[in-house]
C-alpha cells in the first residue's frame, strides 16, 4: 500500500477529532436556530456565544467585535467593502500589496472599477511589504490599508504592527488577512494595531465554510454584502452556521492550547526540510523570507521543471503538496506572488509548497527527501531547459505558439 503523507496544511487541515465530536452534538441533538427564543434556540445561542468568546479571547478582542462569516473570503470582502462604502465621503483610496490572497486582491480590483483608486504595493525578493512603501503611498484620500499578516504561498510574515501604527497615526483604517497566521503564531489585535482582521476555520483543524471577521469597536464600517435578518447584530444576515461556529470555537481553543509547542515542533521539521532539500538537490531556490516565515511553511522553486509535473509525481508516491505553477491554477500565468517577488516566469512555473501539520513526523520528512531527488532528476532529464538555455529563452516570446494568452 502506498504511504500517504499530507503536506498541504495551508490549503486545508484535517478536522481535529474533538472538533468533529463537538460539531456532531450540534448536528444531531442541539439543532435549534440561535435566533429562536425557545429552549432549543437558547441552547444553540449559548453555544454560539461561547464560541464567540473563545475566538475573541484568542485575538485579544471583545466578543461583541467578532462577526461569524462563511470563511476567509467572505470576511475579507466584508471588511474591504464595508470600510470602502462607509468611508466614501472621506476618500476613495485603498492600499494593498501585490502578494495578497485573491480574496483581497480581486476585491480591491473590483472596487477600482467602481470609482475607488487602488495602490498595489510591490514586495521585495522575500515577498515582504515595506513600511516605507506604505507610508509613501498614503494620500489624504486614503481610507483603507489592507495587508496580509502572513503570505499563503511563501509563508513570509509581514511587518503588520508597524504598518498598523502608521495607519493609526494617519487615521486610516487597517485590515489584515490573518487566515494563514492565526493559530500558528501569536495574533493580537491590539499588538498588531489592526481595526479589522480575518480568520478562517479550516486552516486550524476546524471545519470548512466558517470564518470570522474582527471589527474593532467604533470602526466606521457597515455591512454591505447581505441584506436580510438581524443576525450578528445586523452585521451579517442569515441563520448562523451553528455547527460550524461551534467547530471553529473548539478549533480555536485547541490551537491556542497547543500553539507554542506545535510551532517549536514544526519549525524544527521545517528547518530540516529546507536545509536538506537545498543540500541534496541543485538549482533549488527557497522562496519567502529565510527567517520571518510561518513555522510550518517551506516553499521552493525547482529550476528547469514544472510544478504540476512534480505534484503529480509526488502524488503517485503518496505525497500531497501544492504548487503555484500555472497548470494547477487554470491560468497560464504562474503565481502572482512569485512574479511579484521578481522570480522569472520559467522559474516560478517550478514552484512547490510544503506546509506541515501537527501529524507530520521526521519519517515523513525522510520519505520526502528520499522520493523528491529522483523525481527532479527524471523530470529534468525530460526537460529541454538547462542552465544555459533557460535564461536565453526567457527574454523573448517570439516562438510562443500560445500568444493569445501569453502576456510575457
Amino acid at each position, binding site marked *: 500500500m502506498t504511504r500517504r503523507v499530507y503536506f498541504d496544511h495551508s490549503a486545508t487541515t484535517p478536522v481535529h477529532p474533538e472538533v468533529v465530536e463537538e460539531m456532531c452534538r450540534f448536528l444531531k441533538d442541539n439543532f435549534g436556530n440561535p435566533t429562536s427564543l425557545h429552549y432549543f434556540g437558547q441552547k444553540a445561542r449559548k453555544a454560539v456565544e461561547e464560541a464567540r468568546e473563545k475566538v475573541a479571547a484568542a485575538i485579544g478582542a471583545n466578543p461583541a467585535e467578532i462577526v461569524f462569516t462563511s470563511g476567509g473570503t467572505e470576511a475579507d470582502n466584508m471588511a474591504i467593502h464595508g470600510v470602502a462604502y462607509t468611508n466614501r465621503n472621506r476618500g476613495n483610496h485603498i492600499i494593498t500589496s501585490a502578494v495578497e490572497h485573491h480574496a483581497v486582491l480581486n476585491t480591491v480590483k473590483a472596487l477600482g472599477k467602481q470609482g475607488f483608486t487602488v495602490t498595489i504595493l510591490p514586495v521585495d525578493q522575500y515577498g515582504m511589504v515595506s513600511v516605507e512603501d506604505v507610508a509613501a503611498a498614503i494620500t489624504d484620500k486614503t481610507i483603507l490599508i489592507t495587508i496580509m499578516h502572513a503570505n499563503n504561498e511563501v509563508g513570509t510574515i509581514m511587518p503588520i504592527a508597524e504598518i498598523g501604527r502608521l495607519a493609526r497615526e494617519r487615521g486610516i483604517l487597517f485590515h489584515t488577512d490573518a487566515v494563514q497566521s492565526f493559530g500558528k503564531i501569536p495574533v493580537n489585535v491590539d499588538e498588531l494595531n489592526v481595526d479589522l482582521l480575518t480568520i478562517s476555520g479550516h486552516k486550524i483543524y476546524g471545519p470548512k465554510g466558517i470564518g470570522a471577521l474582527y471589527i474593532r469597536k467604533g470602526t466606521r464600517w457597515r455591512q454591505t454584502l447581505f441584506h436580510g435578518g438581524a443576525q450578528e447584530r445586523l452585521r451579517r444576515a442569515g441563520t448562523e452556521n451553528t455547527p460550524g461556529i461551534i467547530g471553529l470555537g473548539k478549533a480555536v481553543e485547541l490551537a491556542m492550547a497547543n500553539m507554542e509547542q506545535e510551532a517549536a515542533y514544526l519549525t524544527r521539521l521545517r528547518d530540516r526540510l529546507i536545509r536538506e532539500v537545498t543540500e541534496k538537490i541543485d538549482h533549488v531556490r527557497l522562496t519567502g523570507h529565510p527567517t520571518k516565515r510561518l513555522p510550518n511553511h517551506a516553499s521552493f522553486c525547482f529550476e528547469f521543471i514544472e510544478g504540476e*509535473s512534480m505534484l*503529480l509525481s509526488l502524488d503517485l508516491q503518496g505525497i500531497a503538496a501544492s504548487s503555484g505553477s500555472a497548470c494547477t491554477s487554470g491560468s497560464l500565468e504562474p503565481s502572482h506572488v512569485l512574479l511579484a517577488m521578481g522570480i522569472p516566469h520559467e522559474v516560478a512555473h517550478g514552484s512547490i509548497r510544503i506546509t506541515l501539520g501537527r501529524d507530520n513526523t521526521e519519517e515523513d520528512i525522510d520519505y520526502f527527501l528520499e522520493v523528491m531527488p529522483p523525481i527532479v532528476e527524471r523530470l529534468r532529464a525530460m526537460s*529541454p531547459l538547462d542552465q544555459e538555455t533557460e535564461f536565453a529563452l526567457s527574454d523573448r516570446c517570439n516562438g510562443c505558439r*500560445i500568444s493569445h494568452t501569453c502576456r510575457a
Partner: protein
Amino acid sequence: MYSEKVMDHFTNPRNVGEIPDADGVGQVGNPVCGDIMKIYIKVKDNIIEDIKFKTFGCGAAIATSSMVTELVKGKTLEEAMQVSNKQVAEALDGLPPQKMHCSNLAADALHAAIQDYLSKKKKEDKQVN
C-alpha cells in the same frame, strides 16, 4: 482529472531524449508560458524512422509529447503532417478543457520538425543541382 492513458504516458513516457544527428528539429511554446516542446526526427525514404522529444511542462504536456511520437513513428512525412493536436488529445482519451490550448502543442512541434527537415533537404537539393 487526467485519463489513465495520460497518466500512463506521463509516468512511462515513450521516446524521451534527443537525436544528436537529427534530420529535423522542431520546438514550440516558451518557458515563459509554461510549456516548451522539442521534437527530433530521423527520416529515411520519406518515413519517420526515429523520433524523440524533450518537454518542459505539466503532466498533459509530457503525455501529449509522448503520444505524438508513438502516433507517427514509422509513418510517412505526409501522414505525420496530417496528425493534429486534437487527434493527439483523442488518442489520450481526452484532456481536461483547460489543458487543451496550453499543453497540447505536440503536433505543432512535430510539424515544425518536419518543416525543418524539408527546408534543410531543399537547401541540400539546391546545392547538389
